[in-house]
């Protein structure tokens, strides 16, 4: 009996080893372990054996069954994996077809992206963001900013008026005044927004965007202005950039400077052996105007905010055009493209 069991195991294992499909294995399972197979019969007959034989025979037959089931299951599992793989290969699709459903592309306007990029630089430097109305008082747009009563910028040929004392702000600078009136120093703030001037030609639109910056604190200096704008220029135009300050004139700053950034399209004004078109061969590109806040500006708010006593506080201010920065950085050749809203333009920056 024990011999027969061992014989069955050997034969069955050989057959399992030789099987090549899961169907064959199923047949072997029926043949060797099915209801009519010999081994189960032996197991069923154990109870009729002599008590002395019952133990060894039952144990061996049971072991044999477990061994055979194991061998078949193992082999079956290996077939199932391989056959699944085969089915999956047959179930292939063309994965080069586009996505479905396709999302509509979308994007922020280049002006918004540029504005956010600049805002984020100054947020990182610890500035807050202030806002003010676009329909503004002459008093804040010009008077408080030290524009002489006859300053040409006040002329109706340059500035849009809504009434005698109300205009469309010509710069974001009145936000300086509004912010100082409600916030004592120290003050670190930028003011982005839409501004208006009566210009309409190849390089001017009657509406454009600026960002104003204002820092008022103990001992704020021209050197601080230089360092701050250097950090700004590097953040926007690249870490290799340098800046230079050129003396200039603005009514609301003294000293006043214009700020150039080293050209990022050429080497010392030469690009591919030619004069650089971007910086006109000068190696520098003008990006903004700035200066130390004129004491008269502080004086204009000191009545309501005595902490801005021009004898006691110092500060710097700067103003830059978003359109100009965006065009320079992204090689946009024509200002009009920014207001045309052609989707083919918009999606380039999405």
């Amino acid at each position: 009996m024990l011999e027969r069991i061992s014989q069955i195991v050997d034969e069955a294992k050989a057959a399992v080893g030789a099987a090549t499909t899961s169907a064959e294995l199923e047949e072997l399972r029926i043949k060797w372990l099915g209801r009519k197979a010999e081994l189960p019969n032996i197991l069923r007959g154990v109870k009729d054996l002599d008590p002395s034989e019952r133990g060894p025979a039952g144990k061996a037959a049971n072991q044999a069954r477990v061994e055979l089931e194991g061998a078949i299951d193992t082999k079956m599992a290996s077939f199932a994996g391989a056959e699944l793989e085969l089915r999956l290969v047959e179930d292939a699709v063309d994965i080069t077809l586009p996505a479905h459903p396709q999302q509509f592309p979308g994007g922020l306007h280049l002006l918004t992206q540029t504005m956010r990029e600049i805002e984020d630089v100054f947020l990182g430097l610890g500035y807050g963001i202030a806002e003010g109305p676009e329909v503004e008082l002459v008093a804040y747009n010009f008077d408080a900013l030290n524009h002489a009563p006859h300053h040409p910028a006040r002329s109706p040929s340059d500035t849009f008026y809504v009434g005698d004392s109300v205009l469309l702000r010509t710069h974001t600078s009145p936000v300086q005044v509004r912010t100082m009136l409600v916030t004592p120093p120290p003050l670190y703030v930028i003011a982005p927004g839409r501004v208006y001037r009566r210009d309409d030609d190849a390089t001017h639109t009657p509406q454009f965007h600026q960002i104003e910056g204002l820092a008022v604190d103990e001992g704020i200096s021209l050197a601080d202005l230089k360092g701050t704008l250097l950090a700004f220029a590097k953040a926007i135009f690249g870490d290799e950039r340098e800046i230079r300050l050129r003396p200039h004139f603005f009514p609301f700053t003294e000293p006043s400077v214009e700020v150039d950034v080293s050209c990022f399209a050429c080497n010392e004004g030469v690009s591919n052996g030619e004069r650089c078109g971007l910086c006109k061969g000068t190696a520098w590109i003008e990006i903004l105007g700035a200066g130390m806040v004129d004491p008269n500006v502080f004086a204009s708010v000191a009545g309501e905010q005595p902490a801005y006593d021009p004898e006691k506080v110092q500060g710097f201010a700067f103003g830059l055009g978003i359109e100009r920065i965006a065009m320079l950085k992204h090689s946009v050749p024509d200002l009009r493209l920014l207001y045309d809203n052609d989707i083919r333009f918009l999606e380039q920056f999405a």
Partner: protein
Amino acid sequence: MKVPLSLLLEFCDPGLSAEEISSVLALSGTEVERVTRLGVEDSSNFVVGVVLTADQHPDADRLKVCSVDVGAPEPATIVCGAPNVDAGQTVAVALPGAVMPGGMTIKKAKLRGVESSGMICAEDELGLGKGHQGILVLPNTAGPAGRPLGEVLPLDETVLELEITPNRPDCLGVYGVARELHAATGAELKPAPWERDLGSGGDLDGIQVSVEDSDQCPIFTARIYEGLSAAVTPPAIAAHLTAAGMRPISPVVDITNYVMLVIGEPLHAFDLDKIEGGLTVRPAVAGETVATLDGEDRTLIEGETIIADVGGPTSIAGVMGGARSEVGWETTRVLLEAATWHGPSINRTSARLGLRSEASGRFEKGLAPVLASRGQAFASQLFEQIYGVTPVAGTVAIGAVGEATTVKLSHHKVNSLMGSQLTAERISAPLERLGFTVALDGDEFSVGVPLDRLDVTRDVDVIEEIARIDGLEKLEATIPTSGAGGGRLTRDQRIRRQVQDALVSAGCFEAAGWSFCAPGLSDRLRLAADDPRRNAITLVNPMSSEESILRTTLLGSLLDSAARNAARGASAIRLFETGPVYLPSEDGLSDEPQRFGAVLCGPATQPDWRNASPDDVDVHGAIGVIGGVLDSLHCQWKIVPATEPEPFLHPGRSGVIEIAGRPAGWVGDLHPLVSAEWGLDGGVAFEVDLDAVISASPEVLHYWAVSAHPMVGQDLAVVVDAGVSAAELIEIAEEVGSPELESVVVFDIYRGEQLGENAVSVGLRFVFRADDRTLTEEEASAVRQRILDALQDRKGAQSRG
């Protein structure tokens, strides 16, 4: 201002190239807009010629055969095509061998059978400008024939075009620029040209002058020159004037222009014999007229400053002289005026008359009174040089030069404002080079301001002078460390960014629209006569009537942008904008509420290989975009039918956006007439008040417990009257289904014949769940039945099973 480099170098020559000088000037505050080379590479073979005869070419209508004296024994025959060539003219001649600016060498050549030995030149052919209306005709005094042309024209000159900032009228003369160059480089500055005065002070016989309003005319000076006879402007002066863009005219006029070019003070010369009686500087009476030097009759308005004699106005002060007292070749007695004027008034008058001149451009900046006496002094040297006369004794001088001012400056303040550690020496050196006087007492400087530096009145003005001349490149670059600004967005600013980002995520492009719009927009949008959006802020001085009011809705420019894209063939147009609208407020300013809005046209989903022709976007597509935005900010919102539909929307396919229970915007299919007006095919739009979103968005999101027990899902289809909205059914279900009902959505809408004409089947999908136990199917069915009963009761709904 155009500065001939050779003239600048006469006063200060730092031994630098034009480019280096430009850079030095730019970095010390005088911007150089352009450096222009005038003339030719080699001026040999260019001579002054005199046209002896100019006859018609026998074989060419447009050519003339000229006999030109070029200083040689025999006149040269030159064929000339210029319409203005004529016998007797003094002209510029390029002889054979001359190399023109383009590189062409002039040779003897036959033109239509006539041999031509040179070329009579136009302005542009000599590299002197753009003029090509004919040949350049020189003053007869430019001769004699044969004189090297380079002696009378700037054939070898470099011109710096400077942008002088409005605070620096002292640099509107070449000598002022030379002083800047001296200060910035340390190169020697030649003595000022006004230092030698050949005239004298005291009363001047022969003219009476009165000034009625000294505010308009801070200083008025005059001198008389007599016994003038024929004279010639020195060629070097003529060449410098030409290079600076001023045409030499006559010696007297050239003197006035040259003084202006060198020291920045415009002068005016009267023919003294043409003045009747004395001169009065006074405000014009409305309607007075004056014939100006340019041959025009000008009518003055009340208060414009004029200079008049007994015959009426003789010139418009500071703007242009009058023809009646103009100097000419016959003039033997000149009254030379040097005055300064109230800048803004000059600006106003010249702008009104459209008369911009070198003189008015300077006077409008507000020149220092001291320039008048300097102008007289320098002119006296030129009269002596050219005419050999000195001024008649005495000078009219009405008004005061003003006192020199002193500014106190603390050493500490200089370094504090600049962020520097300048020594006293480094502070005083730049100032002294600029002509300031400096005295130091302890920590305090006393700085004496030159009389022509009216812009310097305060310590910060002086510090600017120090900073720019010492050199801004020497400043350290430091960063303030306080960070007192907070370094963060406000909640409003953050939410505005989130709204923009959500619209982008919904597949929309942000557009940059215009704040301006046309008054006709309201009609195009079909707004009712009493629609508050017709009440817009109106500009007093718009660029055009199409841009004369400020927008009260974002829709106009969004439609414009959509229309442009549609016209260019775009199929899917999804544009949004965020920004203010401008609503008149009682204080005369505006309310500027922030809005966001969009216009969507074209397919609702991207056409692709699974669905090549998706349906066009409709109001529900727009609601999806809005919902994406509002859900991302956790706002409570719903769309409700409008009691009064927006006139620019489809009345049956539009609604009101309610946020936190309040109307906050509109959404809908565009009205077909509006779509057609903009040439769009359908389209949907919405506009939402951003403030409503900001106030409805929770500041902080708080956790709520999620149930650990399984859900039971059940569906219900009911047939209701078509007038019953899905929102009403959902509202009832939510009310009645509580607390077991977790969510309900509409999963099917069906209309069909078997339902009857006015009925609709609405499929609702419920999720039921309990917080504290596993809900059984039976319990769930009971809740579903409860809901059905309520729907039947309140809306007459019938179950479809």
